[in-house]
């Protein structure tokens, strides 16, 4: 009997030892064993997604991806005898200083990067040299077929703190998350000799980046950039910008700034060029602001186009300041139509004072002045309006003619476009469609932000602006046969508490054809030296571009 119990005890002990051991390996050491098993039979590979393209309205990618390589070296495989020759060979192909390469190859490391974004041709040349210890890693780098077209609109791709691609400025920055996609993981199973086995790779959710289809018209953008560059040089300006928008939908047709930069080699340019000045620069708009103030006063029934100005016989004193007209010519009892035509500052002081501070602030708010437009670009700013209790009489007066108030060009263009669009202010946008990585298309719908004036007021204001373009200071440069609504601007630049007497920001804003506008455009020249007035610099440039737009859109003359 006791023998039976001993044997039974022995069997139970063995059984429990086995159970305990199984528990140890299958529970306590489970993760470690799984890892070991994975490394023996399979190799995990990270599948990097391709960044989405950026296409103009005709489907042409102005930002695409091209194949390139990272050249790396294993310094331990390069002997001291070969190091100098290897450095010289790589230096001549990669255009890097040989001493820099030699220093990298001296590192006591297994892997050192030599250069990124190396072209396929350069890679082939290096491969043909058959240098031991030099290898290549496939990459995709951004490629710009139209070179620097719309550079400040598009932005560029740099690296984040972890060394991953990240978009900065413009569309690359605003839509970075959509453009970059999601990486995936695949497991390649192989045999004992390392050869792949036909087995299903676990492709965990790798999604290529979404592509963006813009409302930007490539042909118009090309024309605008060329004309802008020529205009800046012709008028001796420091810089210039042009923005063209479809007032009916808010779609941006073209947006150009000069000088610009090459997003493919952004590091070679000063970072002051990266930001898009059309959305990031504040300026005092001057006379191009007058239509906004006047249309607000007309819409609220405070004035009519025939209202006569009682204070326009001479300079106007406000709060200890004397306000003059730009040409020191004064027109007694002038009408509002003539005030706009002559760009009469004293007449606009009258309009502003008739509005009063509360109604002025209300008008500006409805036109979106003092807040961002919501355009889908990274870097937009706005200068909020002062609170009502901080407005002095001189602030009200100067706001009437666009001084003492700061706006971005896109704010102004969007506001004037409301007059062109029967009183409705649209949200500007650059992207019209998003093409997702899994094949879906998301259309961006136009959005009405506000209705600052009625349809009737918009029509009245349009006629005033057509008369201004036809009979105002820029009449000599207008395109005959076309009804174009427009206004010149010659704004003084504030420096250290006063205005620079010799330098201006010359501008022209307008839309055409006046009755059914196809486009609204703002042209700005910063500190032109050939002439300081908008009528002599920005206006001719506006009409030069408008002429090409009429041809492109097959818009015939009105008469």
């Amino acid at each position, binding site marked *: 009997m006791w023998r039976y119990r001993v044997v039974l005890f022995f069997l139970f002990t063995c059984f429990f030892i086995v159970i305990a051991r199984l528990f140890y390996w299958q529970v306590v050491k489970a993760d470690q064993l799984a890892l070991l098993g994975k490394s023996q039979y399979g190799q995990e590979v990270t599948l990097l997604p391709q960044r989405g393209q950026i296409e103009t309205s005709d489907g*042409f*990618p102005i930002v695409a991806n091209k194949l390139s390589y990272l050249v790396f070296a294993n310094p331990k495989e390069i002997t001291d005898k070969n190091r100098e020759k290897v450095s010289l060979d790589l230096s001549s192909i990669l255009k890097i200083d040989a001493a820099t390469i030699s220093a990298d190859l001296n590192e006591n490391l297994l892997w050192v990067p030599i250069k990124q974004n190396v072209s396929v041709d350069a890679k082939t040349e290096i491969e043909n040299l058959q240098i031991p210890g030099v290898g290549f890693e496939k990459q995709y780098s951004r490629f710009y*077929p139209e070179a620097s077209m719309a550079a400040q609109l598009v932005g560029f791709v740099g690296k984040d703190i972890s060394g991953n691609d990240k978009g900065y400025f413009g569309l690359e920055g605003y839509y970075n998350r959509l453009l970059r996609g999601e990486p995936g993981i695949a497991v390649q199973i192989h045999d004992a000799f390392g050869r792949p*086995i036909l087995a299903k790779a676990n492709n965990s959710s790798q999604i290529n980046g979404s592509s963006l289809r813009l409302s930007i018209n490539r042909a118009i953008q090309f024309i605008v950039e060329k004309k802008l560059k020529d205009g800046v040089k012709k008028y001796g300006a420091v810089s210039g910008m042009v923005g063209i928008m479809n007032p009916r939908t808010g779609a941006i047709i073209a947006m150009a700034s000069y000088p610009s930069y090459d997003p493919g080699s952004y590091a070679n340019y000063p970072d002051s060029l990266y930001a898009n000045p059309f959305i990031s620069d504040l300026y005092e708009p001057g006379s191009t602001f007058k239509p906004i103030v006047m249309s607000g006063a007309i819409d609220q029934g405070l004035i009519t186009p025939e209202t006569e100005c009682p204070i326009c016989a001479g300079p106007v004193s406000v709060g200890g300041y004397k306000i003059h007209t730009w040409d020191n010519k004064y027109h007694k009892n002038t009408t509002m139509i003539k005030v706009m035509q002559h760009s009469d500052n004293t007449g606009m002081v009258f309009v502003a004072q008739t509005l009063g501070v509360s109604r002025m602030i209300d008008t500006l708010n409805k036109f979106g002045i003092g807040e961002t437009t919501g355009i889908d670009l990274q870097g937009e700013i706005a200068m909020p309006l002062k609170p009502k209790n901080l407005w002095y009489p001189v602030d009200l007066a100067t706001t009437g003619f666009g001084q003492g108030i700061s706006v971005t060009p896109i704010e102004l263009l969007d506001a004037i476009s409301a007059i062109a669009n029967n009183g409705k202010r649209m949200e500007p946008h650059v992207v019209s469609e998003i093409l997702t990585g899994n094949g879906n298309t998301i259309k961006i719908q136009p959005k009405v932000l506000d209705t600052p004036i009625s349809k009737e007021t918009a029509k009245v204001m349009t006629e005033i602006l057509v008369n201004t373009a036809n009979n105002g200071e820029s009449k000599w440069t207008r395109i005959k046969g076309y009804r174009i609504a427009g206004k010149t601007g010659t704004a003084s630049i504030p420096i250290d508490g006063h205005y620079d007497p010799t330098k201006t920001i010359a501008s022209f804003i307008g839309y055409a054809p006046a009755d059914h506008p196809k486009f609204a455009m703002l042209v700005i020249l910063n500190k032109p030296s050939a002439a300081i007035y908008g009528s002599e610099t920005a206006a001719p440039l506006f009409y030069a571009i408008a*002429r090409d737009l009429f041809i492109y859109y097959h818009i015939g003359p009105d008469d």
Partner: protein
Amino acid sequence: MKPSGIFILILFFIIITLSIVQVVISNKLSTTGIELGRIDDQITALKNENNILQSKLLTRESFINIASSASTLGFVEEKESILLSGSTPLALK
């Protein structure tokens, strides 16, 4: 033999047959990895070539390239357009 015995025998033969089939197929598949690797390499090479060709095509199609080529070929930029207007000659009587 009892029916249950025949049933068990049939099941036994099915199991053996399926096991042999699995061994044969696994054996065949185990060496197709070489072919898989070759096809993978081919796909990668073709994708790379596609990308290179697309880049070249886009460069050729760009306005910058077309404008430059046009200039080289002697095309001149149009300076201004001429508007033809005036009343249409029409015999009223």
